[in-house]
């Protein structure tokens, strides 16, 4: 006897804004995640790189005979062995294995593949390199002077005359000067504006070297199959760009290159470029005809990873007595290091902050990036914005003080609003900037504390309290800098109602697979457990430009949503046929097809999927979608709406400054972020807390100490990350502006939280002590010196002085 099933009604619910644990958390917390270190291929060899012992020198001779003779060594390579080497990097000025010269201490001179790491290391010690030292150039201000030692000189004849200039990239043709890149931007007329200003201030700021400190160090495995196809296990953040570029460097058909990403132990921008070690690992695999694994030691990670861009920056700003900003003029000198990576291109982002964070009718921006023998700078969360914001927000305080205006009022008066188009052509379709400012200020009781602290500056006692505010603007809807800023998705529903989300977007620890799954589940009315994500294999996943520019939730989210909507339409159409009703009356919820009006369950999804599949007109539900944001390329003058949405934030930092030791203790950070909409509350809180702590490290403790081209502190003992007891109380408010283009209204926030911490801290120290410190980080000694009139003298960025 068949019992009639009870009619079931499914209650509406949503996943959006809920606290969803990261899908990879159980594996990571239990130590089961397989990182590159955990992967071993049969027959695999271990690669090690011999790096330069000199900062700048001619390579006279390399003797690898003894290394080659060591039992267990399968390949020893130098530039001489790789006849077809091509330069890598943004400016094509960097050969993976150095030919005639080393230009910095990290430079790769030779490499070994051996049966164990120990043997490979022993072999490195057997390689003898003869150097002839060249003059060392480590001061960027010296590097731009005429007559300076050239880092990439044009080749010369033995007689000294100019050689016939070879054609091709910088690595082969050299350069007549040390200038790697220049950026010049302007809107309005700063000269006229200055004449009309009531207050003008100028300062030079010095932003230092820091590095990413990913817990997972760099590494890869290269493996050629017997048909010559190359498989790379790689930690890259940009697998699809990598594939094309590797093909170029290796002179291979890109179709024969496949990249699989194991779990990545952090990226933060460090894995956005191709580095010599990656190309060398492939060379070794090719030479040894065996898979080769090359993983950095921690010291190597410090010494040979790119850094955040160090910058010397002179800013001149003005305003009227009524508090309206009149102009900004910026000159920066970027220390490029010996080779060009993404660091040199940070002006793309820096100029946005100068031109568009606040409404400024006239803006002039100039950068020169110069070669030196220092470590080279790459991309790093915030991409120049920490440096720019540090300067801009110092001047917001200074100008307000100069005209006697409340510092918050001054900011509110100049803050961008929804609907505005900035001087640089950025269109702010959603903008919660003012709300960020007022929320952060109110929740921290900023105004009262600010006034009280100024009054107490000269009160007795060594400890002074300070409060400072700073804000930031960053792309939050991708950044159109490549032929496409898009992402593809393939969505597959199986016979059991399980969904496989195949996305081009990589997971580098930021929680993207969780948030993408959430968007799909929301659309298909499924629990998170119904989702499997495939996101790490270029042979399977559709194209994506990569993890950068805080773009994944926005771009890959919209792409996943697009695919899910197509799948939903297909499922509902099938259900409509089955139940003979219009599809519009149906919906998906709780794993069922329901009547939208009543919530009555009609059929569970697995059953419907099987009905569709195992029928005469067998059908699978598999959809694809490619999302391209409606942003535009900048024109030649760097103007244009480069992102489909913009993120805003204001942060208030509270400090206690011990004037007898210089110790700055952060006691509280109140952050208000315009995130469009909160998708995964747990994820976004983690992202913002983590970013704030990274910003705290930039502000207070982290510094790569480079002296004469030598890194003095390549270890966690002397490179000081913030530890748990130093992390202040963090109060986060989310401003939900529901961006019209964002997935469910969300905008990107990946980089945002790290950007204005240092700027707000500088303002807080000033509020506490009346002393403005223009160099970072605020280590006890730097602060103590500044408080006792022994601060660093900062000179104008030379271009400006000239």
């Amino acid at each position: 006897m068949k019992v009639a099933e009870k009619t079931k009604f499914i209650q509406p619910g949503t996943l959006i804004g809920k606290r969803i644990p990261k899908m990879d958390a159980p594996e990571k917390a239990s130590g089961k995640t397989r990182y590159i270190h955990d992967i071993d291929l049969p027959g695999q060899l271990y690669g090690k790189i011999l790096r330069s012992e000199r900062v700048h020198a001619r390579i006279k001779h390399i003797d690898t005979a003894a290394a080659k003779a060591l039992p267990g060594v399968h390949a020893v390579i130098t530039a001489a062995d790789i006849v077809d080497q091509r330069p890598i990097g943004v400016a094509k000025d960097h050969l993976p294995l150095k030919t005639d010269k080393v230009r910095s201490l990290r430079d790769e001179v030779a490499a070994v593949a051996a049966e164990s790491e120990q043997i490979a290391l022993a072999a490195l010690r057997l390689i003898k390199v003869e150097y002839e030292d060249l003059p060392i150039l480590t001061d960027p201000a010296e590097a731009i002077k005429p007559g300076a030692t050239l880092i990439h000189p044009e080749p010369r004849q033995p007689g000294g005359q100019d050689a016939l200039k070879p054609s091709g990239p910088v690595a082969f043709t050299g350069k007549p000067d040390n200038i790697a890149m220049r950026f010049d931007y302007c809107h309005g007329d700063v000269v006229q504006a200055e004449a009309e200003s009531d207050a003008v201030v100028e300062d030079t700021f010095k932003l230092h070297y820091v590095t990413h400190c990913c817990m997972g160090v760099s590494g890869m495995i290269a493996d050629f199959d017997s048909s010559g196809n190359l498989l790379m296990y790689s930690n890259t953040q940009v697998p699809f760009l990598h594939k094309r570029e590797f093909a170029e460097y290796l002179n291979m058909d890109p179709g024969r290159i496949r990249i699989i990403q194991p779990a990545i132990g952090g990226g933060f921008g460090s894995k956005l470029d191709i580095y010599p070690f990656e190309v060398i690992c492939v060379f070794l695999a090719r030479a040894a005809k065996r898979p080769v694994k090359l993983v950095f030691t921690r010291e190597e990670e410090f010494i040979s990873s790119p850094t955040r861009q160090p910058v010397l920056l002179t800013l001149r700003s003005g305003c009227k007595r009524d508090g309206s900003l009149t102009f900004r003029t910026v000159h920066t000198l970027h220390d490029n290091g010996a080779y060009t990576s993404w660091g040199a291109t940070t002006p793309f982002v820096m100029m946005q902050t100068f031109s568009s964070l606040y409404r400024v009718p006239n803006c002039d921006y100039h950068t020169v990036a110069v070669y030196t023998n220092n470590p080279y700078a790459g991309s790093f969360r915030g991409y120049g914005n920490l440096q720019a914001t540090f300067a801009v927000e110092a001047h917001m305080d200074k100008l307000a003080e100069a005209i006697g205006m409340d510092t918050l009022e001054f900011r509110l008066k100049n803050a961008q609003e929804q609907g505005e188009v900035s001087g640089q052509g950025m269109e702010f379709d959603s903008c919660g900037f003012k709300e960020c400012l007022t929320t952060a200020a109110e929740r921290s009781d900023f105004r009262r504390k600010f006034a009280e602290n100024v009054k107490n500056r000269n009160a007795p006692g060594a400890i002074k309290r300070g409060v400072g505010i700073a804000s930031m603007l960053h792309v939050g809807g991708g950044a159109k800098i490549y032929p496409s800023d898009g992402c593809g998705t393939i969505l597959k529903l199986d016979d059991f109602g399980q969904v496989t989300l195949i996305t081009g977007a990589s997971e580098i620890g930021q929680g993207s697979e969780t948030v993408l799954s959430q968007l799909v589940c929301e659309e298909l009315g499924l629990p998170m457990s119904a989702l499997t994500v495939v996101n790490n294999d270029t042979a399977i996943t559709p194209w994506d430009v990569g993890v950068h520019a805080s773009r994944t939730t926005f771009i890959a989210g919209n792409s996943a949503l697009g695919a899910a909507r197509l799948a939903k339409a297909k499922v509902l159409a099938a259900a409509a046929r089955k139940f003979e009703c219009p599809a519009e009356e149906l919906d998906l919820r709780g794993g069922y097809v329901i009547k939208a009006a009543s919530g009555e369950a009609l059929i569970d999804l697995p059953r419907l999927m099987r009905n569709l599949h195992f029928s005469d007109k067998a059908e699978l539900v598999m959809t694809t979608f490619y999302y391209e944001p409606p942003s535009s390329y900048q024109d030649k003058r760097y103007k244009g709406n480069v992102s489909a949405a913009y993120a805003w934030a204001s942060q208030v930092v509270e400090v206690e400054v011990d004037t007898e030791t210089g110790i700055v203790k952060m006691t509280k950070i109140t952050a208000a972020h315009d995130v469009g909409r909160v998708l995964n509350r747990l994820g976004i809180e983690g992202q913002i807390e983590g970013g704030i702590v990274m910003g705290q490290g930039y502000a207070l403790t982290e510094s790569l100490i480079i002296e004469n081209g030598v890194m003095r502190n390549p270890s966690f003992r002397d490179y000081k990350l913030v530890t748990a007891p130093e992390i202040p109380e963090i109060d986060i408010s989310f401003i939900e502006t529901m961006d019209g283009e964002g997935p469910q209204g969300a905008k990107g926030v990946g980089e945002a939280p790290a950007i204005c911490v240092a700027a707000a801290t500088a303002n807080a120290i000033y509020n506490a002590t009346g002393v403005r410190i223009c160099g970072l980080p605020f280590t006890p000694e730097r602060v103590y010196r500044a408080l006792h009139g022994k601060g660093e003298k900062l000179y104008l960025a030379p271009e400006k002085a000239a």
Partner: protein
Amino acid sequence: MTEIEQYVAPSSLEQAAEYLQRSGEVTILAGGTDLMPQSQGGRLKIKRTLMNIQHIPELKGIAIDGGAIRIGALATITEIMQSELIKKHLPILIEACDHFASDQIRNAATLGGNVCNASPAGDMLVPLLVLDAEVELASKPDGGLTRRRLPLSEFFVGPGKTRRAPSELLAGLRIGLPGAHHYARFFKFGTRPALDIATISIGIAGTLNNGALSSARVAFGAVAPVPMRAPRTEQALEARRLDAATIEAVAGVARDEVTPIDDVRASAWYRKELIHNITKRMLDHVAQA
């Protein structure tokens, strides 16, 4: 990397002393928290024989022994921190342990290792100096195990260098039981509250009566080639009433007495400033005690 030819793990002090007597080519391994990073970093070459001393019972334990507290060379920082004896009689050592590295390191790091490593910044050394600690050295020169004692203040001769002979093993440290009104405090200045090497450190001790310290002991870390006692500062402090002028004067003497260097952690100038300002702060506390 070193080619270690022999690994030994003696189970008695006598055996260990015998290995040392037989060959100068022995590296002693206790917790390994200095030895490992130093040999990995190429700053130290492990000798032909590596001798693990962790199985020697005579080197363990914390006990009262003839009016003194004896801390075995193998006592770990964690053991010291948890010892009721130390809490009761030598709380200044707890203060030092509390700023020492991380839990993981504290579980492995030994007091003997800290003393024999003889870093000017070794955290236990400054408090031990102001407690008038003695080192107990064991060796087996002519068939019999002998021990000698040496004041810790005479033990250090340079960075990483001590008066321990290659044939000697540090067996333990002895600290006289402090009398009534004993006062002893330690301050470590690092750039962050946890996991840091001292930029400077200060120990102050003595018998506190009517706001003055007698038998005053002052020691400084990370401001000279060795962790140093500061006799001139002690003299300036001895039995003086700690009014503001005296405190300022003592702090001034302290600043002049230290001879720090510039390194990645701080400049010599800043270290001197810290010695002055923090000595002053600590003496303010003494005055209020």
